[in-house]
C-alpha cells in the first residue's frame, strides 16, 4: 500500500512539528479536555491490538479444548464433526510455502523495477510509471483472484505441462496432472500482488541514497552497475529487508486471491503443479459459511495463529526500520 512509508520523518528537532511549553491555565480546562481526548484516541490503537489478542484467545479456547487431535500437528480440518478433529499443520505449511515462493519470485523483479525507476529510466517516465505502480497497489485482491481463477489458470496449466515434460525429474515438478488450482498458480498470483508494494517501498529507499555517495562512486570510474552495488544497495539494505518483510506480512495474510486460486486441499507436499494448497486465511474464508459454533471457534483459533505469525513478522520489520531511523538521525 502506498500509505506504508519507510521514509523517515525527523522527530521534530527543529522548526516543523510538535509544540513545546505553553501558556498554562486555560479557562474551563478546555486545554486539558482536548489533551485527554487526543491521548485517548492515540491509545485506542494499543487497546485494539490487545483486544484482538484477548477476544481471539477467548473465542478460540472452546474449540481447542474440544479438539481431539493435536491442533499444531494434525493436518486435516473436520471442525464441524463431533468429536471435532482439526489441526493447523497443512494450513500453516501452505501459508509459509505460498508466501515464500511469492517473495522469491516478486522480490528480484520488484528490486529491478525500483532500480529502473530510480536510476535507469528517464525522470518523467519514472514518475508516471511510479504513479501507475501505486495505483496497482490499490487494486482489490478479489480482482487478482478472479483474474487468476478465470484467466490465468490456462497459461499456468500450459506452463505446468512444459515444466513437467522438461523438468519432471525434479520432485517439485513431478505431478502428472491434472493441472489447475495449484500452489504454482496461487504463488504467482500472490507474487503479482505483493510486487507493487515491495516496489514502491524499495523505490523510496533507493531515492534516499545520498547523492554524494553515488557521485563519488561514479567519479572514481565505477560503471552504473558498480555504483548501484557499492553505493545504493549497501545503503538501502535495511530498508530493502524491511520492505521484503512488509511484503511477507501482506502475503501471509492474503485471503481472497488464494481462496480463489488454490486447490483447497489439506496436504503437506512440495508438489507445485498438482491441484493442491491451502492457507490459514483462505481456509477461514472458505469454511466460514458452513461452520457450526465449534467450527467457527476453530477458525478463530487458526486466525489467532495467523495473527501471531504476522505480528512477529511486522514487529521485526518495524524494528529494522526504527533502528535505521535512529542510525540515519545520528548520521544526518
Amino acid at each position, binding site marked *: 500500500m502506498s500509505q506504508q512509508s519507510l521514509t523517515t520523518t525527523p522527530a521534530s528537532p527543529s*522548526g516543523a512539528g510538535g509544540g513545546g511549553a505553553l501558556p498554562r491555565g*486555560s479557562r474551563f480546562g478546555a486545554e486539558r479536555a482536548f489533551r485527554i481526548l487526543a491521548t485517548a484516541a*492515540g491509545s485506542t490503537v494499543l487497546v485494539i491490538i490487545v483486544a484482538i489478542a484477548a477476544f481471539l484467545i477467548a473465542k478460540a479456547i472452546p474449540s481447542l479444548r474440544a479438539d481431539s487431535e493435536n491442533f499444531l500437528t494434525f493436518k486435516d480440518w473436520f471442525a464441524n464433526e463431533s468429536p471435532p478433529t482439526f489441526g493447523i499443520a497443512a494450513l500453516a505449511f501452505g501459508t509459509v510455502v505460498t508466501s515464500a515462493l511469492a517473495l522469491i519470485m516478486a522480490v528480484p523483479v*520488484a528490486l529491478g523495477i525500483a532500480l*529502473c525507476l530510480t536510476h535507469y529510466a528517464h525522470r518523467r517516465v519514472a514518475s508516471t510509471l511510479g504513479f501507475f505502480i*501505486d*495505483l496497482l497497489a490499490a487494486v482489490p485482491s478479489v480482482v487478482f483472484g478472479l483474474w487468476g481463477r478465470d484467466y490465468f489458470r490456462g497459461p499456468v496449466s500450459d506452463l505446468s505441462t512444459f515444466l513437467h515434460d522438461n523438468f519432471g525429474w525434479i520432485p517439485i515438478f513431478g505431478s502428472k496432472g491434472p493441472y489447475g488450482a495449484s500452489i504454482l498458480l496461487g504463488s504467482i498470483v500472490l507474487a503479482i500482488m505483493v510486487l507493487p508494494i515491495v516496489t514502491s517501498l524499495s523505490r523510496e529507499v533507493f531515492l534516499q541514497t545520498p547523492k554524494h555517495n553515488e557521485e563519488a562512486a561514479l567519479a572514481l570510474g565505477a560503471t552504473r552497475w558498480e555504483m548501484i552495488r557499492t553505493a545504493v544497495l549497501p545503503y538501502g539494505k535495511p530498508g530493502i529487508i524491511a520492505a521484503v518483510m512488509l511484503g511477507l506480512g501482506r502475503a501471509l495474510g492474503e485471503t481472497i486471491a488464494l481462496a480463489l486460486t488454490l486447490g483447497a486441499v489439506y496436504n503437506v507436499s512440495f508438489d507445485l503443479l498438482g491441484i493442491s494448497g491451502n492457507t490459514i486465511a483462505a481456509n477461514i*474464508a472458505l469454511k466460514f459459511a458452513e461452520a457450526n459454533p465449534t467450527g467457527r471457534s476453530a477458525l478463530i483459533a487458526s486466525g489467532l495463529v495467523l495473527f501471531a505469525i504476522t505480528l512477529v513478522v511486522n514487529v521485526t520489520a518495524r524494528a529494522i526500520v526504527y533502528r535505521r531511523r535512529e542510525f540515519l538521525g545520528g548520521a544526518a
Partner: protein
Amino acid sequence: MSVASHSARSRVTLKARRLPGWAPAGVGAAAILIAALAVYLPGAGGPVLTSVVAALLFLVGLGALSTVVEGGRAARNRVATSLVYAAFVLALAPLLSVALTLVTKGSERLNGYFLGVSMKGVSAFDNKGGAYHAIIGTLEQAGIATLITVPLGVLGAVYIVEYGRGRLAALIRFFVDVMTGIPSIVAGLFILAFWVLVVSPMFNNGRPEYSGFAAALALSVLMLPTIVRSTEEMLRLVPGALREGAYALGIPKWKTITKIVLPTAAPGIVTGVMLAVARACGETAPVILVALGNPAINFNPFSGGQSSLSLYVYEQAGTASKYAPGRAWAAALTLVVLVLSLTVAAKLLARRNKLAR
C-alpha cells in the same frame, strides 16, 4: 614531447574500446531470430517460449560480446542494465493482462440494468441480476467506517505529533505501524469475536447479529492505522513558526491545533483518508465473516446481512454457472472504477498540496 606522439609510441589510448550504439539492438535481433528458429522448427512451443529463449540468448550474447570488446566490468554493467529492464517488462505483462481482462470482460455486462437491480429472486443460472445491493453495501460500510476512523485517527495523530512525549507516544507510534500489517481476515475475526458474538446478542435477544455495521467496524480496524500514519506525516509538515505565532498571540494550544494546524494540514489529511477509504472499499475477507452477504437490497446497516461489491465478486466467482463469471467481472470493473477514481483523486489532490512540496 606531444601527447599524440607519446601515445603512438607506447600504444596508450585514453579512450576505452566500446561497442557501437547499435550493438544491443543487433544482438537482440539475432537472439530473436535464433530463438524463433530453435523453437518453431522442432515445434517445441509458441511465442512465450520464444521470447524466454530470446531473452536468455540476448543476455548471454551481449555479455560475451561485451566481455571480448569492452572487458568484464562493462559487460557486467550491460547485463545488469538488461536485467533491470527485463524485470520491468516481466512485471508489466501480467499487470497489463489483468487490466485488459478486466476491461474487456467487465464491460460486457456493465450497464444501467446491472447497476440498478439486485440479486433478489435471481437464481445463479438466470441470465439476469445486478449489483445494486452490493454497491449500497460498499458505500454504507465504507461511509460508516470513515465516520468512525476520521475523528479517531486525526485525534490520534494530533496526540502523537503535538502532545506525545516519552514511552507511551513511542509505543503508540510503533504499534500504529505494526497495526498497518494486520491481515484483513484477522480484523474480520476480531469483529466477529467481539461485536457479532459478544456485543450484538445484547441488542438482538441473545442471537448474534451479522450486519453491515459490523463490517464497517472491521474496516475501521484496517483504516485507523493508515489514517493515523498519513495524518501524522502531514501534521509534521506544518511549519513550527505557525504554531509559535499563535502561541505568541496568547492562543491556547488546543485552539492553535484546531484552528491553525489542522486547517493547514487539511488537504494532506483528506488525501490520506481517501486512500484509506479506497483500500477499505476493496476488502472482502472481513465482509464475508461479519456481514455474511444478502442477495436483496438492505439499506439498514444495523440489521440483517448486507452484501458489498467485493463480496459479490467473490460469491459470483465461486458460483458454477455460465452467467456467474460475467456478473463477477462486471462487479469487479465497477469496484475497480470506484477504488481507482478515489485513489487518482487523492493523488491529484496530493500533487496540488503545497505543504508536501
